[in-house]
């Protein structure tokens, strides 16, 4: 357990004791890994995510296309020599554009999820640890923000603020932290009454020590699982924003905008503008959800073999 391996002075134990106590922690890690590895969907998800990341970040090094200059004369060509997945309505190579579009989607998705996760964890832990009026105020803020339609606010912000990768990351994270805040607050309410937290208090330890060295490490399972889902949600939200015309403006690309543009030509039969990027979005989000589900199971002690 992570609480026995912490380095706080009040838990002074000799090396032999540490050695004995670390063994169960390692065993638990192995059990966690075993549960995860046994989940075939999760493994497939991991493989797909790795492939997609390689596709987006390594692909452009191997498959060179011009994703900056348009060429209207070469627009809307079907798959063929030189363009395995055809060209879009301004002449960009679709395969290369999916790679570039994926970079921004994945970068923003992970960045927003981590940002939201960190902030949400801190918010929830503080609220749960102190309780009382502090908890009430902080969680009512969360409730109030949860009652606001996220997409509506994001569309409004996109109309008012210049859309770029940094702003999009902040905008997505602005609403994504609410769920982890609630989850961690619930965890904290349970953890703060545990003996080791009480012991810290009794020995004069402050709130920050309790939160950062005892509560958060013990809620790591919840955090990791939630961040995984947050990544998937962020990528989906970005795709929705892009689909509605509020993605990063050209020549930057994102999957949602590509899909939106492709749908314009649905009656023209330009399938290469719709299916490839649509499948990519579905695969990415689905894979992240598989991984998240498997992590949740893996962190569930009841499912771990003893």
């Amino acid at each position, binding site marked *: 357990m992570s609480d026995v391996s912490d380095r706080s002075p009040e838990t002074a134990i000799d090396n032999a004791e540490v050695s004995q106590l670390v063994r169960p922690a390692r065993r638990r890690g192995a059990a966690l890994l075993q549960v995860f590895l046994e989940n075939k969907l999760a493994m497939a998800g991991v493989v797909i995510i790795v492939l997609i990341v390689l596709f987006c970040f390594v692909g452009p090094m191997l498959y060179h296309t011009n994703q*900056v200059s*348009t060429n*209207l004369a070469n*627009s809307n060509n079907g798959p063929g020599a030189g363009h395995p997945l055809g060209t879009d309505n*301004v002449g960009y190579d679709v395969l290369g554009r999916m790679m570039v579009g994926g970079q921004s989607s994945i970068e923003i998705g992970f960045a927003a999820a981590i940002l939201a996760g960190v902030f949400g964890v801190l918010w929830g832990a503080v609220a749960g640890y102190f309780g009382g009026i502090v908890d009430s105020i902080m969680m009512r803020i969360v409730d109030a923000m949860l009652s606001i339609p996220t997409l509506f606010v994001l569309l409004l912000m996109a109309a008012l603020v210049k859309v770029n990768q940094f702003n999009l990351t902040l905008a997505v994270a602005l609403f994504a932290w609410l769920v982890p805040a609630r989850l961690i607050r619930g965890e904290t309410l349970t953890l703060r009454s545990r003996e080791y937290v009480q012991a810290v208090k009794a020995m004069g330890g402050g709130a920050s020590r309790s939160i950062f060295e005892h509560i958060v490490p013990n809620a790591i399972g919840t955090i990791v699982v939630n961040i995984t889902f947050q990544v998937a949600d962020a990528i989906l939200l970005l795709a929705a924003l892009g689909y*509605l015309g509020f993605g990063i403006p*050209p020549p930057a690309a994102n999957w949602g905008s590509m899909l939106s543009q492709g*749908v*314009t030509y649905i009656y023209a039969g330009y399938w290469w503008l719709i299916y490839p990027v649509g499948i990519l979005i579905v695969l990415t989000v689905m894979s992240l959800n598989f991984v998240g589900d498997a992590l949740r199971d893996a962190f569930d002690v009841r499912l771990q073999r003893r």
Partner: protein
Amino acid sequence: MLNLFHKPVRVALGALIASSSLVAAGAGALGSSASASTTNITFALPPAVTPNYIFPVMGAAYYSNVNLYQFQAEMFRPLYWFGNGASPTFNPTLSLAQAPVYSNAGKTITIKMKSYKWSNGKPVTSADVLFFMDMLKAETKIWPVYVPGEFPDNVVSMSAPNASTVVFNLDKAYSTTWMLYNELSQITPLPAAAWDKTSVNGTVGNNAGTTAGAQAVWKFLTAQAQTVATYATNPLWQVVDGPFKLKQFDSTGHTVFVPNPSYSGPVKVSYGSLTLQPFTTDAAEYNALRAGTVDYGYVPPQDSGQIPLLKSQGYNSSPWIGWSINYFPLNYNNPTVGPIFRQLYFRQAMQEMVNQPTDVKKALYGYGYPTYGPVPIEPKNNLSTPQEAANPYPFNPSKSKALLTSHGWTVKPGGTSTCTNPGTGPTQCGAGIAKGAALNFNLQFATGYTYVSQEMQQLKSNLAQDGIQLNLTSAPFNTVIATAAPCKVGPSCSWQMENWGQGWSYGPDYYPTGESIFETGSGINEGSYSNPINDANINATHTISGTAVLYKYENYLAKQLPDIWQPNPDFQISEIRSTLKGVSQSSLLNFTPEYWKLSK
């Protein structure tokens, strides 16, 4: 009579929210399905363009084709109507007055009113014409096609000897064709007996008889017109002389007209109602068309391959070509980039990066034609010259780059070019351009049309070869035309380039002499272009008959590039339900739905 006079009026586009295309389309289609019966005709409005102003004495921000022709003209008919079916000529039959009679060596115009009636039973009289003129004279600065010294300034006095006669005394004699097609064409009689008051409960009388009174009346009516939610219920707007009355209207632009039973024109409406259906995008409209919920719609250029399918669904296809030119203005009075825009070599460099033939072929799928000057080259006419049609500045990237380098700019392809040789000499950047000035500009374009976005992205890419950075943003049509307003040099005159996508369709200046959009001081000369030679050329067309003066004007201006010319799309590729008869598509873009009939 000229072969083809046509009109220009800014093609109205407007917009609401740039999104939810398919959903909106479906909703729009479902919403109108019930009304697509034998008694209702549903007309699809252009994408992201909505009617938003009911009072005909309006400012440039509302001066759109949809407001003028699809909305206001159904209720308030202009004094003189232009367009005979598809022919863009004077239409005496639909006009509210006889053709003007000139006397006093051309300096006096006498107009005889016909026996039209308002929907409240009162006749349309000379007083209604003077009521309009009084407000126009009092508020010339807001009138979009106002040019100082021209209409209504050139009407030095006016009178109404009796209820059916109007007399205008002009400051000098003008070309009778130009006066009818470009000046008198601006008049819309308004119901003085109902509107000539300064408050809701005010006394109706000759309040507009003085300048101050006319301003007060205009202010009152403008305030009423800005309350869009009451358009269908405000008693003011129910007094009409057109074939329709407004039954429903909401802020999305969804409009339902019903016949005006008192309409005294030659043809009465034969069906129950006319619906103007708004759409946010052309794709949304096409979905509604496929669902069969639109009687008179259009197919987007990118879906033109579906025309045979639509034929099998009972629609007849007919391209609707407007008497228009397409361009986007540059703001010459922008304090930062205005001095750059004032350099002809720079405008040439930009123009030579616009590949119009490719744009027409790939973005418009052939449903359009290039703009090379101030007179449309399509529909075929005898007013555009061979010089203009030959394209003075064809696409030529190397020449474009050379123009910049030969005028003191250090060109950085893919980067940002800067002025390294400031000054006013022939090889220097030009007046007002400092050393280090960068070719970095903002361009806002209208949402809704796919081809506009394609063309702007291509232009950005092309200009990057010259090191000209174009920062593209998009906004609804109404926002774009409201932003593109003439302004004086100063910090607030901050817009740089605005592209609403469809330039100018000639009207009510049907004869394409260009004073409304290119003469110094015109209310709708967005970029404040000013050129004394051009002004003189324009003014010559006002007083000298014949095409020679027009040719001189257009040949000069085509090479001066007051704006950046861009391809002109067909107004729309119309899809008309086969059971809808009596439709004629005027190149002036006005329409006469009272002639439409639904057959089984």
